[in-house]
């Protein structure tokens, strides 16, 4: 019963946070709503006995990615990004996008049946050892492909940011020193 209560609370926080991300006017509040979504998701992972995913979800998403979001929003300064007027809805356009989306969602979810999870040994399920064995045996190929994809993305981002600055001809003191070195 405790687990069910936690599930409902975490789900409610996740959904409210998601709504908050798109409706809150202040950018910093929108970012914090997204943080709440991330933390609620990590609680849901923990309820599924996925301890490692729980910790990684907090460290990577809540602890690093969202801090960088917040960093950028804080750099822009309070209030500068505030939108004028309310959230305007273009009904016809919204329906054009929303109807197919909900249709696809319905088509996918109507095939899903509630079922008890497969029997797993909860002493080892979701543990670091289990995830490690999975990553380095069964899922080794997709795992390595993903790492290459992320590396390409990182190199691309660095290339784009460097190229732009070189075009302006002005870098920070740190970069100038690096160029000389």
């Amino acid at each position, binding site marked *: 019963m405790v687990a069910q209560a936690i599930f409902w609370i975490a789900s409610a926080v996740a959904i409210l946070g998601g709504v908050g991300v798109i409706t809150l006017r202040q950018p*910093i509040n929108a970012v*914090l709503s997204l*943080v709440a979504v991330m933390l609620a998701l990590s609680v849901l992972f923990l309820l599924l006995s996925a*301890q*490692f995913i*729980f*910790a*990684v979800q*907090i*460290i990577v998403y*809540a*602890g*690093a990615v969202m*801090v*960088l979001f*917040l*960093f950028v929003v*804080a*750099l822009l300064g*309070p209030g500068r990004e505030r939108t004028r007027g309310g959230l305007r809805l273009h009904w016809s356009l919204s329906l054009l996008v929303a109807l197919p989306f909900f249709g696809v969602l319905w088509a996918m979810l109507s095939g899903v049946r509630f079922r008890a999870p497969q029997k797993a040994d909860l*002493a080892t399920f*979701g*543990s*670091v050892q289990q995830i490690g064995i999975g990553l380095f045996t069964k899922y080794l190929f997709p795992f390595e492909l993903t790492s290459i994809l992320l590396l390409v993305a990182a190199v691309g981002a660095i290339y784009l940011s460097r190229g732009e600055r070189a075009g302006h001809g002005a870098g*920070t*003191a*740190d970069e100038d020193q690096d160029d000389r070195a």
Partner: protein
Amino acid sequence: MSSITLAAPDPLGLYTNPIGHWVIVVVAMVVALVVLMTGAAYSVWFERVALGRMQRRPGPNRVGPFGLLQLAADGVKLAFKESFAPRMVDPVLYVLAPAIMVTAAFLAWAVIPVGIWYGFSYWIADLNVGILLVLAVSSMNAYALLLGGWSSNNKYSLLGGLRAAAQLVSYELSLGLALVPVFMIVGSLRLQDIATYQVHWFGASFPLPLILVAPLSFVIYMVSAVAEVNRTPFDLPEAEQELIGGYLTEYSGLKFVCFYLGEYINMITVAALATLLFLAGWEGPLLPPVFWMFVKIVFFIFLFIWLRTTLPRLRYDMLMRLGWKVLLPLAIANVVVTAIVLVAVQ
């Protein structure tokens, strides 16, 4: 519910009884809270006395014997201060920031084991991911500093908060990577497994301080830990000569106490982690484990204070270069070399 084990005999069957179990956990949490708050207060006293002695002055010595009650006096003074907020602050985030700081600081102690007596150690939660929870919780500190700096509506606070966020995110990487060789050697992320790690060499098994097999990990961990808890030479988020007090500038009264308390508890936490990870935790000759654990933690706290009196503050670009171009590659190389050695040995 995860199975929680106690490394001690349980004659009354108290721990297998669900109600008795919760009673023990709640009592342990209260004890941890009180011990940590007292510990944080006396770390401040210890720091002020040690700083004083190193600078050839007595330090606090008027309130109580050896100035031991100085922190009680300071606490009462701060509690009675007017809790004002500057104009135009974000009222919710301004209060939320110190709350996050102090909550995260206490939460890390859920998985930190404490050796109490021979064959008897206690930890509140037995998680398979162990130390990852400490890292996850300590990554929440970035929010406290960033939100505190942002919501204060003050340019110095904002700069301090931004510096804090960049610094914490950068040094978390090398901190985490520095610990990977330790995990590889021990084969577990649980702090109690790491602290009681035994080697079987020459037909005998004995506890081995992991600093002897992973010295580079220890060095990278210590440097990153000093940066993580914002202490000199890495205290740029609150560099008083340039930023007044950084994110702390606009805080007073109990909200200031929350930040300060969180900072000192974090210092005790990284000292305890260093003890458990690299100095064989509570193992030691002759005297009971609780003594050894205490002495080792105090040693690391003294090390932090010693660093503070010895080293000047780094410049911001130097800090970033040290984190990304020195510590991170070193930590990765350390992981690779340890992996090769481990495979070769086995």
